[in-house]
């Protein structure tokens, strides 16, 4: 460790606690309290990465979440690896492993550095312009571009950490625990507001907590001492909850905010097991106080990106908070007083400052004289025009600025340094404010955007509101809080402030150079390697809106969203285009403020909790009997039951054959069931189904088709009349919730006069369907008391019955074309009744079948599946189901649409059957139907919707939709596939037992 860079003066660093960590495979030491950045700097390391496009060496630039350069990969090749982490935010712990990203083979020698030499041919929009032509080549280019432009590596194995989501409700949320945030939290809590104070850092107090300057005092105490007492006091307040390491990611409307609380990232890996890593806080606050502070601006000049160039405020923080000197020969470059505070911090510890370069001609505040007194040369009215040194800055050259600041004049002077601090003034951190929908205004005097119109009950205080001086911050915080919280007592009776900083500033967005702009590299967005030259090029090419310039040059498009450079981009645009700041818009800051891991976003919803799934009451039986499952909506449905070495095809063929030859059994519990009661129930069904219901006798069942108001088929199912004013409707499995919603909608909004009550009973009943020529014998054994004779219990009727003491409903309805009985029983008896059926069916080879066989059996009969054979573009007429559309009924949902000019067209796509010329050839569902493959482009006439090999018909069958299909019966068409054309013949969609003899067949 380079001892001369560490100063044993900081109370934030525990020097008794040494921490070892690895960076780029080398072991280093730091202390507890260090960030990775401060520990690296203490070891004399500035170069930590390569830039994105030109692969230029880059160093640590800042000391916080705004860091654009020091983006590293943590724990490479481990399950906990994480890319794009800011070294300035990582608190070091024993065993930390970090590495540079975006460089190969190493950060010191990088092959991509060739891009820097090629940079004259890599201007803004280069990729778009060069690689987009010819369009078909993009895929080839992309491979190489992606390979050379890496932004870290994603983990390859499951994340071992636990993440949580929490809801928080509070009266007042204070974001940012700097001096104004601390005061606000205290005032709010002491006035009875339930308050939450959050800060992204590991400590409270912001930059004031290490402000030990004699030049700014509160009540005659050092700012840091005064603030420490305040923090001590608020930590005891009952009404106040304080969360550190908590970064607000998003500020949505109605004061709904998302924040990430980091709980274990600062702990050694072996102490993280079974602990929650991050908590995503979903905060609903009545009032929000934003005190997010401000971010120092860099200055934009040629080669302003070398390692060793930092923000001046970062240099101050590294020495004051971490006791680390960033360099031994420092130069500060500024356009305002801030850099002089940094100078005083360095002077106090005897760290050498070679010079201060100040854009201003007049430098006259007390702190500047104080710095000058220490024999530090101040170059007033000068600007840095270039820097030197490849892996670390070693020299700068400076020139005098012209009066208007547009050019540099006189001789060039070279000055040695190993660290250059930049201060271009401050940018209020308005990111969260704008996310919430707030409107900004531009303040000319110091060229900042500040909050103007608040969209919700919120306020910005402190430097994020554009108050930069200590006196201003405290005074304005107190007065605006009184108003905002509507209180008299501010808790701060007398606050006396001494502050000697002067707010004068000479703002030049792009500093002039002695070279032509084409020969300079003045970086505006460090992370994305966007330079002032790129922005000017975009303007020359006609881009004006900041949103367009941003995308064309990629300025502000990095993981840091351009926290440092966006203002300069706006400034350069307005200067070049000769317009007012903000006239071309300000960039939109989008959530998250700092990146979130996917783990944080999904929380506990991983693995089996990723999505909800529903199981039928008979599910365990299916599992035990080797079923494969398919997802239908949220349901897990038995798909098929393979025996021994059967594949799916073999299992389905066996199941289908058994169902028609003897008996099959299906778990139909997932079908939607809606209980409908009320004196107007019949009238209601008349209005929602296409067919008539009034005359359906009690105890009878009827198939119904439901349309949308546009005439397209929406759902179908059998509805049974249980009593005079009582029906039970079944819906498709996937459509159940939507059908109920639609029916409720009509009842509540269009027909509130109807006396009808709906309730979903899908989960209340298990539904077991026994079908096949032997089905009657089987159900008779299960329910011996019920008369199953065709006379007493004909097709499409229903009976109440009992199995033991348990009431059940039995419907004789069929979706297979076979004789079929559906037993509906209270869900918790479902499994045992299923087992009884299996027992009773033993002698009849009763065969459980899944959804695949069900689909095959109904396809043989030409029964549609809504959502498979239909897609919301087919009317019942298109489906050749004219028979179910009542001509007599005055109205039903969708009726009027059935004779719109479009729905009566003859050449609409219509449902047909398809038979392959070769009966062994099974079509692919979704395949196109054409008549002529030689024509170009080939006209698509329709597509295959369902396709199976039928073991009962011993041939391939398919359903499809086909233009004018009704009139094409018997025609030969072609299904073109990747390597062959399949000939098909248009057929009747009913392939088996068109007369319906099987429904009443006796074995």
């Amino acid at each position: 460790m380079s001892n001369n860079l560490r100063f044993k003066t900081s109370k934030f660093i525990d020097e008794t606690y040494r921490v070892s960590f690895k960076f780029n495979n080398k072991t280093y030491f730091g202390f507890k309290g260090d960030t990775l950045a401060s520990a690296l700097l203490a070891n004399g390391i500035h170069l930590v990465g390569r830039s994105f496009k030109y692969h230029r060496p880059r160093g640590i630039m800042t000391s916080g979440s705004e860091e654009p350069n020091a983006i590293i990969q943590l724990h490479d090749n481990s399950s906990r690896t994480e890319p794009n982490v800011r070294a300035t935010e990582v608190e070091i712990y024993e065993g930390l492993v970090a590495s540079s990203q975006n460089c190969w083979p190493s950060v010191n020698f990088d092959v991509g550095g060739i891009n820097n030499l090629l940079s004259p041919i890599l201007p803004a929009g280069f990729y778009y312009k060069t690689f987009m032509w010819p369009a078909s080549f993009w895929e080839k280019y992309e491979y190489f571009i992606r390979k050379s432009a890496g932004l870290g590596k994603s983990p390859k194995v499951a994340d071992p950490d636990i993440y949580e989501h929490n809801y928080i409700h509070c009266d007042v949320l204070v974001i940012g625990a700097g001096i104004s945030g601390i005061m606000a939290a205290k005032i709010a809590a002491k006035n009875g507001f339930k308050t939450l104070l959050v800060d992204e850092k590991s400590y409270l107090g912001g930059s004031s907590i290490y402000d030990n300057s004699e030049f700014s005092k509160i009540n005659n105490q050092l700012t840091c001492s005064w603030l420490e007492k305040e923090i001590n006091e608020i930590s005891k307040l009952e009404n106040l909850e304080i969360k550190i390491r908590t970064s607000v990611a998003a500020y949505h409307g109605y004061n709904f905010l998302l924040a990430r609380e980091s709980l274990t990232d600062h702990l050694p890996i072996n102490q993280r097991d079974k602990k929650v890593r991050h908590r995503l806080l979903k905060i609903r606050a009545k009032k929000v106080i934003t005190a997010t502070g401000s971010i120092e601006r860099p200055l934009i000049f040629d080669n302003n990106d070398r390692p060793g160039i930092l923000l001046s405020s970062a240099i101050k923080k590294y020495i004051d908070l971490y006791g680390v000197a960033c360099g031994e020969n420092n130069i500060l470059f500024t356009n305002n007083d801030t850099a002089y505070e940094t100078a005083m911090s360095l002077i106090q510890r005897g760290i050498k400052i070679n010079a201060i370069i100040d854009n201003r001609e007049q430098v006259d505040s007390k702190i500047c004289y104080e710095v000058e007194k220490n024999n530090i040369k101040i170059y007033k009215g000068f600007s840095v025009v270039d820097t030197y040194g490849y892996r670390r800055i070693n020299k700068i050259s400076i020139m005098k600025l012209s009066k208007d600041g547009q050019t540099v004049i006189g001789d060039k002077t070279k000055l040695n340094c190993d660290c250059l601090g930049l201060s271009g003034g401050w940018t209020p951190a308005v990111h969260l404010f704008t996310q919430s929908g707030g409107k900004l205004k531009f303040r000319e005097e110091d060229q900042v955007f500040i909050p103007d119109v608040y969209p919700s009950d919120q306020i910005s205080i402190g430097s994020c509101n554009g108050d930069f001086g200590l006196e201003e911050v405290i005074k304005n915080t107190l007065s605006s809080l009184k108003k905002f919280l509507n209180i008299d007592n501010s808790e701060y009776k007398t606050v006396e402030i001494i502050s000697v900083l002067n707010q004068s500033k000479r703002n030049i967005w792009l500093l002039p150079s002695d070279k032509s702009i084409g020969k300079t590299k003045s970086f505006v967005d460090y992370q994305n390697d966007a330079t002032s030259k790129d922005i000017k090029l975009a303007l020359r090419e006609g881009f004006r809106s900041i949103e367009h310039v941003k995308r064309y040059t990629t300025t502000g498009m990095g993981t840091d969203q351009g926290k440092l450079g966006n203002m300069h981009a706006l400034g350069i645009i307005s200067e070049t285009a000769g317009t007012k700041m903000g006239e071309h818009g300000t960039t939109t800051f989008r959530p998250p403020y700092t990146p979130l891991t996917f783990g944080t976003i999904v929380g506990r919803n991983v693995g089996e909790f990723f999505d909800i799934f529903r199981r039928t009451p008979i599910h365990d039986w299916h599992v035990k009997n080797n079923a494969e499952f398919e997802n239908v909506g949220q349901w897990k449905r038995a798909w098929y039951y393979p025996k021994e070495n059967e594949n799916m095809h073999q299992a389905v063929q066996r199941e289908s054959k058994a169902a028609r030859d003897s008996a099959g059994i299906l778990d139909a519990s997932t079908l939607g069931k809606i209980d409908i009661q009320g004196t107007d129930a019949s009238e209601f069904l008349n209005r929602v189904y296409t067919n008539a219901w009034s005359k359906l006798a009690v105890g009878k069942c009827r198939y119904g088709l439901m349309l949308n108001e546009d005439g397209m088929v929406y759902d179908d199912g059998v509805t049974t009349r249980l009593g005079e004013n009582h029906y039970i409707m079944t819906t498709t499995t996937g459509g159940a919730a939507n059908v109920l919603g639609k029916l409720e909608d009509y009842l509540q909004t269009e027909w509130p006069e109807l006396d009808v009550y709906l309730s979903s009973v899908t989960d209340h009943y298990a539904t077991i369907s026994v079908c096949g020529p032997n089905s009657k014998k089987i159900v008779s054994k299960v329910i011996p008391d019920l008369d199953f004779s065709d006379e007493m219990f004909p097709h499409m009727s229903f009976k109440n019955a009992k199995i033991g003491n348990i009431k059940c409903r039995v419907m004789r309805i069929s979706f297979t074309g076979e004789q079929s009985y559906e037993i509906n029983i209270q869900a918790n008896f479902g499994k045992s009744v299923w087992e009884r059926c299996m027992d009773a069916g033993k002698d009849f080879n009763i065969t459980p079948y899944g959804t695949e066989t069900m689909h095959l059996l109904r396809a043989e009969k030409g029964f549609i599946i809504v959502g498979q054979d239909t897609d919301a573009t087919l009317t019942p007429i298109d489906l050749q189901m004219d028979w179910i559309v009542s001509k007599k009924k005055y109205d039903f949902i969708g009726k009027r649409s059935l004779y719109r000019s479009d729905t009566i067209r003859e050449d609409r796509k219509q449902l047909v059957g398809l038979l392959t010329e070769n009966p062994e050839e099974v079509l692919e569902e979704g395949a196109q139907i054409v008549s002529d493959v030689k024509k170009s482009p080939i006209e698509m006439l329709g597509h295959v919707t369902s396709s199976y090999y039928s073991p009962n018909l011993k041939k391939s069958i398919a359903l499809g939709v086909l233009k004018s299909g009704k009139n094409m019966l018997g025609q030969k068409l072609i299904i073109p596939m990747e390597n062959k054309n399949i000939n098909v013949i248009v057929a009747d969609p009913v392939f088996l037992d068109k007369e319906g003899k099987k429904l009443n067949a006796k074995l």
Partner: protein
Amino acid sequence: MFLINCPFCGEREQSEFKAGGEAHIVRPKQPTELSDDEWAEYLFMRKNIKGVQFERWNHIHGCRKWFNMVRDTSNDQIKAVYKMGEKPPVK
């Protein structure tokens, strides 16, 4: 995310609700009497205003009641909520 004051339940999170398009479009009593154009007007034509808009909302994960909302789509301010069949309390 909005906080919506359901007329039946009170203030709840937006995630409990479902938006249901423009409000105060009454289903014609005699659809069969309408021309294609008149029916299309009812069926397809919806306003999409930047500004104050009358909307239908459903408290789908709550009381499941439909109600109306007046919302300024430019800033998402909810001006009023009221029950189906009631007259809008604001213009």
